[in-house]
């Protein structure tokens, strides 16, 4: 249900994986490579890397939190690494539950927390030839192990 992959992601595969006969609702979030950065620079592609094992552990923790907060539901998360072109899917979160409110809330929670906490990094490549590592807003500032 939780993985890092270097291959193309099919949101429908994850949606099917979480949906059972008891589920009346399936909410799927797909994060897609945009042609424009947040600071409005034309983007030619993205490069993702991850600490695969730690990222998967973080997905599991976040999903457990979501179930505790919003109610029983089935959650799948897949994030891609490597070089991605405009329009390609970088991440999918799929949540199925008996009722839709749980699925919406859990799906939004998982992607918000994933962006803040999962050990995954993104480098934007610009039409200008430049590139830069982009950091998400991180609401939890975790101390480090240096001192």
């Amino acid at each position, binding site marked *: 249900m939780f993985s890092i992959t270097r291959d193309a992601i099919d949101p429908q595969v994850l949606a099917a994986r979480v949906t059972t006969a008891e589920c009346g609702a399936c909410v799927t979030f797909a994060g897609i490579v945009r042609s424009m950065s947040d600071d409005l620079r034309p983007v030619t592609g993205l490069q993702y890397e991850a600490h695969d094992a730690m990222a998967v552990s973080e997905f599991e923790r976040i999903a457990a939190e979501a179930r505790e907060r919003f109610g029983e539901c089935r959650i799948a998360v897949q*994030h891609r690494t490597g070089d991605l072109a405009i329009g390609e899917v970088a991440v999918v979160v799929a949540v199925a539950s008996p009722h839709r409110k749980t699925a919406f809330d859990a799906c939004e929670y998982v992607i918000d927390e994933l962006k803040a906490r999962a050990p*995954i990094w993104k480098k934007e490549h610009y039409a200008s030839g430049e590139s830069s590592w982009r950091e998400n807003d991180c609401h939890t500032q975790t101390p480090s192990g240096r001192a």
Partner: protein
Amino acid sequence: MRVRVLAFARVAEILGWTRSEIELSAGSGTDDLWQRLVTAAPALAPLADSTRIARNGRVVMKAEPLAQDDEIALLPPAGGG
């Protein structure tokens, strides 16, 4: 004592490698390892506050002693999604 170090993203670019085996004297901690890396690559120093250190898959909250064969990961601020 030898530990395996994984570097990611900006930190990996500054160090010039993504994984390395590093020999440390017995009793060294995560703080000593970081200092060793900064000495080799001074451009790392400004990233001290933003880089988290994980030991065997768990982020350490303050300096911890290292053990033989530890996996130490240097984690810049998250950028996924």
